[in-house]
Structures are given as structure tokens and as C-alpha cells.
């Protein structure tokens, strides 16, 4: 087994293990930490498949922003988990029914799934030689850049509008203009002249003002 093969199995096993721990851990903080580990393992799998841009994106966006946000929410919010679990037995039958239906469905799809017969295609990672060959062509970021603003300009623009809506929403729902607080106004400060603030008074000796 090559180095790439060993790395693949290591990352694959850690992805599945920590993925399971996310839903099995009793302490929500541990769940989030396992989630972060899962993301990092998946990033490793992406690198092995030659998708290095996606791997970095996963680390930066999911580990760097989303998971840390989760961690803050979990640690800051005082959620009573015992109370959340109290309805578990009551809803269990419905959950089991939905779960079984989904499981049967997924089973049907897996049964219809045809693996490629070519062993080269079936291999879920790139060998060392293939990776070296990959370096010759444009890298991931370049390849994305070539299509993102040409073939996919339509989606790119809609994504921009979606982000604009998200921004407007965040401002509408949380921003409150508070009255009666002392706010700094740099414009006023800069426009202030010496005459507005300081008065030079020549005081005669012995008289006072």
C-alpha cells in the first residue's frame, strides 16, 4: 500500500469515527469539537483527491468560521439539554417510522448504484504519480477562476444578491437606533474650530474675570 493509500484510510476512518461522535457525545461542546475534527479529516480526503482548493475552503470557512460560531453558541447559550431530551420517548415511534422509510429508500439507491469497473476510476484517491501529473495543469483556484466569471456568471451574480438580502436582513432584525446615548461623531470633531471651544481672555491683574 502506498503512502496515499494509508493516508486515505486514516482520514476515512477518522471522518466516520468523529462523525459518529458528533451525534453520540453527551456534552455538546465535545460534539462541536468532534465536528471540527471531522471537517479537518474531510479536508484531508479532498487533498488526496486533488481538490486542494475545496480542502482549504473547508478549513477556512467551516472550521474557521462556522464551527467556531457553533462553539460560541453552545458555550454561551444556557440550554437545558435534559429538558430538550424529555420529549424523546414520546416522539420516538414517529422518528423510527421516518427513519425506516428513509433507510429503505437509501438501500434502494445503493442497490441501483453501479461502481465503475475500471480500477483506476474506482480508486478514491490520487497516487503520487497522478498528483505530480496534476501539478502540470492549471491548479484548482485557476480552473475555478476561468469558469466562475464566464460560464457561471449567472449563478455568481445571484449568489451576490442572496448575500445582499442576508445583509439587509441581519441589519433589519438586529439594528436598533438608540436615543440618548453619547456617541462619538468624528465629522463634528474634525469640523470644530478653535473659536468654538477656547476663548482667550486677557485677565487683568487683581480683577478676576
Amino acid at each position, binding site marked *: 500500500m502506498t503512502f496515499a493509500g494509508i493516508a486515505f484510510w486514516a482520514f476515512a476512518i477518522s471522518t466516520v469515527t468523529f462523525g459518529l461522535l458528533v451525534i453520540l457525545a453527551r456534552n455538546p461542546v465535545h460534539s462541536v469539537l468532534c465536528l471540527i475534527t471531522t471537517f479537518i479529516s474531510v479536508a484531508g480526503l479532498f487533498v488526496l483527491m486533488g481538490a486542494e482548493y475545496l480542502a482549504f475552503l473547508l478549513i477556512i470557512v467551516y472550521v474557521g468560521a462556522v464551527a467556531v460560531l457553533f462553539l460560541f453558541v453552545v458555550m454561551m447559550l444556557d440550554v437545558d439539554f435534559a429538558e430538550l431530551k424529555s420529549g424523546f420517548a414520546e416522539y420516538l415511534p414517529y422518528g423510527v417510522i421516518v427513519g425506516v422509510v428513509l433507510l429503505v*429508500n437509501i438501500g*434502494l*439507491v445503493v*442497490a*441501483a*448504484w*453501479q461502481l465503475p469497473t475500471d480500477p483506476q476510476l474506482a480508486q478514491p484517491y490520487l497516487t503520487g504519480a497522478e498528483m505530480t501529473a496534476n501539478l502540470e495543469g492549471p491548479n484548482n483556484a485557476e480552473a475555478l477562476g476561468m469558469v466562475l466569471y464566464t*460560464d457561471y*456568471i*449567472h*449563478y455568481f*451574480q*445571484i*449568489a451576490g*444578491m*442572496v448575500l*445582499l*438580502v*442576508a445583509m*439587509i*436582513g441581519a441589519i*433589519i*432584525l438586529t439594528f436598533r437606533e438608540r436615543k440618548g446615548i453619547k456617541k462619538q461623531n468624528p465629522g463634528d470633531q474634525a469640523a470644530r474650530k478653535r473659536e468654538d471651544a477656547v476663548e482667550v481672555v486677557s485677565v487683568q491683574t487683581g480683577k478676576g474675570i
Partner: protein
Amino acid sequence: MQLGDNISFAFPEIWLAISAMALLMIGVFIDSKYHRFISFGAIFSIFVALFLVNFGTASENASLFNGAFVTDGFGQFSKSVIYVAAIFAIILSDRFMERERLARFEYPVLILLSVLGMSLMVASTDLISVYMGIELQSLALYILATFNRDSRRSTEAGLKYFVLGALSSGLMLYGMSLIYGFTGATTFEAIAAGADEANRIGLIFGMVFLISGLSFKVSAAPFHMWTPDVYEGSPTPVTAFFAAAPKFAAMAIFARVLVEAFPAATDALSDWQQVIVLVSILSMVVGAFSAIAQKNIKRLMAYSSIGHMGYALMGLAAGTSQGISSVLVYMTIYLIMTIGTFACILMMRRPEGMAENISDLSGLSQTRPGLAIMFSALMFSLAGIPIFLGFFAKLYVFMAAVNAGLFVLVVVGALSSVIATYYYLRVVKIIWMDEPAPEFERDAGPGVKGVAILSTVLIVAGIVVIMPFLNIAAEAAAATLF
């Protein structure tokens, strides 16, 4: 095709996007007492978009951005109806938002952005652009539902809508990824071409998830749970908007996805037909039975909309050109009725606040005879009683379903229609026969009154005024899908 050529076909959407951003900037910088003008600006820009869709380059047939966006008769019809519904929604909000101290310039801007999302959605022939369009319009709608952020009910409505909407988007994306995985394509044309016996099960699996997600967006049973709470909690003009334009847009893309990506030619019709028949039957039954016990008029309208979506899906289940045309006719007429009803609901106001209970309507015929007549006419029309426009809507979908041989569906539809008539007529009975409740205020404003009168006139005189024209337009629009 060069990018410049593409752009001229997408002028209505580009215009909407630019005007939304411009109005946003103007709104930020002008004094709050001029914020009404942002509403006028939004209405004006939707009017311009309506003109561009029907009389510009955008009215020609074309497929752009590698099949992500098309302009055709179907899209043109849907966009026109959506734009008109959005204009009415902005008109309805005028006085209400001021009285409830919600008048903020972001409201028309968000409506514009969600209209942009719907416009992109009904014009897309690619799974990715379908999803992006749906997200753009839904995100704006989640914010609109929460617009009254100091009210518990409104924030609850927004949060419920957001969480369940995200879940349904997840289901839909999962379905889309399976469809992509089994056919190797995201454009509808290529999906239809890539379907064969070998990948049939996987494709059906993906399609069912896609249908689930879209059923959520049109609030068809069993994905209707969010509808009553969101309708009740959101500010009433927002509910009026929810009930009209987004429903039409979701139904239009529903029809386009199923007909274009899973056409009868590939034997996929029988696969999705049975799912749609089931969803349609469930929606009609849930709509008919759950509405009986409702005390709040907005919740009643929510269940009524679930039922009506069931009837519209009946036309879709037929899967023929006639069926799709009947869906378009049904949705357009439903839109007229629902906007009229919400205009009447907006007039239910007492000095202490908005009245939302059905019992508040009692004896309306003695205190406000004009409003009582309009309300009753709208209820008769929603029930589908002949002469009124609602009857013809039902007639067309029933005809389409009979021609497609879906007799069980037609029988269930007829029975649930009878049951639904009970709760519509109960409202009429409360209005005309019960002891009068305190009178409503008379300051709803010219916009709301005008919309109520216009839609009442349309549903009463519709058979001569709009039916002949609407029918031809819908048939022409539906024919472009086949």
C-alpha cells in the same frame, strides 16, 4: 452567444436588481418622512419590469447562460402575474405599516428582491439556478415574516419559516444532487436525455426529494405544517404577499421542472404522476377538514390555501398541456381571490388594534354593508360556487384531470370541495345573520379599498372580463413547455 447578447434577454431581472439596490441606497440617505417614496419607486420599477418582460427583447424565446436561464411564453406569463401580485402587495401594505409603526424603507426593497428571486426561478431550466432563485426569494420572505420584530408571534413565524424552509431546501438539494449523480447533468434537457432504465431507481429517488422540497414551497400537504403559524404571525400585508406571488412562482417552477426534466417521452410521467396525485389528495383533504375548526381568519386562509394548492396540483398531475394551462389559470384566479380577501381582512380594524377572529365579522352586513358584500362574494368564489371566478378555476383543473383519466383524484376533489364549502359559507352566515359586533374603523386607505373593490369586480364579472383572455394566454404559455 456573447455575454452582451445574453444580457439583453435578462433586462427585466437586471433592472429589478439595479433598482432594488438604488432604492436601498436612496432609502438609507433620505429622511424617514420621505420613505413612502421608496414604495412608489418600487411599484414604478416593477411596472417597468412588467413592460420589459412583455414588450422588450425579453419577450423573445432564447436560452442563455448555458441553459441556466430561458425566456419563453411560460416564463413571460408567470413573471407578468408575479409582478402584478407584488405591486398589489406593496399597495396593501401602505397604511397598515404606518399604523403598526413598521413603516421602514426596507420593506419594498425586500419585496423587490424576492420578486427578483421569483423571476429568476420561473425562468430557470437548470437545477442550480432553480435552487439559487428559490433561496433568493425565500430568504427575503423569511425576513419579511419577522418584519414586526418586537412581536413574539412575528418572530416565531419568521423563525419557524426559516428553520423549516432550510430543512426543505436541504431535502431539495439532496434530491438535486442525486439527480445530478445519476444523470451527470443539471440542465433539464440533459436530465431528460440522460434518463434510462439503468438509473431509473436513483432518478426517481432524487425526483421524490425534489418534489418534497417544492411541495414545501407551495405548502402542499404533508409539507404544510408551517403555513398556519406563518400566516397568523406575519404582519397581514406580508401574509397577503406570501399567499399570492411566491405560491404562483413555486407552482410555476414545479410544473416546469416536472414537465421539462421528466417528460412523458422518457416514461418518467407515470413516476411523478402518482406522487403528485397523492400530494394533491392529501392537500385537498387536509385543507377541507382542518379549516373547519379555525377561529382566526388568517389561519382559515392558510388552510384554505393548502386546499387550493391541492386543486392546482390536480392540474399538474394530469401532466398534459391542458393540465399545465389549467394550473396557470387556477393560480392566477386564486391570486385574485386571495389578494381581495386579504384586502378585506386589512379593513378589519378596531380602535384597539387589528381584529383577526372570524367572530369579529359577525353582523358585518348591518355595520358595513359594502365590505360585507365584498367579503361574501370572495368567500363564494373561494368555495367555487358558479358564476364566480373560482368556479371556472376548479372547472378547468377538473376537466384536465378527467381527460388524463385521473378519476379517483376528481372524486376526492369534488367531495373535499363540498366539505370546504361549509367553512366558507360559515363566514358568510356570520357576516349576514349574527348579531352585530362593534363597527370597524373606516380609515383603511384608498389603496386597500381599491384593491378589494377591483378584485371583487373581477371575480363577479370575470367570466366576460378576463376569462376569454386568460384562457388563451395560459394555453399559449403552457404550450411552450411541450
